[in-house]
């Protein structure tokens, strides 16, 4: 029982934990494209900053990923 619940919990931890970062990464990319379209000469700088922002947003999803693996091991 505990084992199957922990598997369910692992799935939920990753699935629910990925919603926020998913929205965040999409927002970063969308705004970066907007910025690049307005000022193409700044595209390089915007792209660099975009990747940093994406990486920071992604970190939250990774915490869920690790938590899923931790829960997966619970018997």
């Amino acid at each position, binding site marked *: 029982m505990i084992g199957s619940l922990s598997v369910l919990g692992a799935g939920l931890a990753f699935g629910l934990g990925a919603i926020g970062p998913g929205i965040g990464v999409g927002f970063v990319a969308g705004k970066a494209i907007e910025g690049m379209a307005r000022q193409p000469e700044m595209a*390089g700088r915007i792209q660099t900053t975009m*990747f*940093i922002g994406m*990486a920071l947003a*992604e970190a939250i999803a*990774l915490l869920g990923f690790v938590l899923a693996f931790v829960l997966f091991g619970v018997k």
Partner: protein
Amino acid sequence: MDLGESIQELLHELQPFAVIGNNTGKTSLILTNYMVFLIIAIALTIVFFVVASRKLTLVPKGVGNIAEWGVEFVRNNIVLDVMGSEGMVYLPFIVTVFFAVLFNNFLGLIPGLKPGTGTLGTTFAWGIMVFVVYNWVGVKKHGLVPYLKSFLPSGTPWWLVWLIYPLEVISHFLRPFTLGVRLYANMYAGHIVLGIFGIFVVMSLAALGPVTAVVGTLSLVMQIIMYAFEVFVAFIQAYVFAILTTVYLNGALHTH
């Protein structure tokens, strides 16, 4: 064999196993298959740059041209963009980090081989290395006490210090953790996705019919697309690892 068993076997296939020593933890020195691929990738990196820098000419040719393009990419798109010209001191370090991660990621894309970055141990060790380096750089520039004080954002009201300071310290300690997990998770998840589409193709071939023919063909197409995407991810993850290293170094030098 049903789908569940196949996926279990796939996950088991991706587990590290000992080449020298045993898995039970009795021996203290174990060489796993991932470590072998790590060593191969690092050796390839070294050979690549030794060959590239053997005959230096004004107009580079062949391997030297590729290496020079790579170093210029790191210099213009990572170091100069984030740190400006003062970051040129750290260019050798960042180029090394970038190419070590890149070669490891690409090695895992060759069928039958695995990326050295596909285990948490390796990527955590690299994250901790970056953590030590940027803190060391910060302490060397500012001195220990001013550096520790600089974790606090300027303009923090005095009555919030007890809350903000521990949070800032925790966020610093999360950095090697997220660096490691990001790289590992991307490599590991990519291999699982490729493996699962491979399983779909094989299972469709085993039970050939009108429906499974369509499913198998779609899976094969998807696998090719995902493989191309994995090549992109391998590059992007090396780029992100290098750029975050640069950002952390920059943050340690220019404390707020």
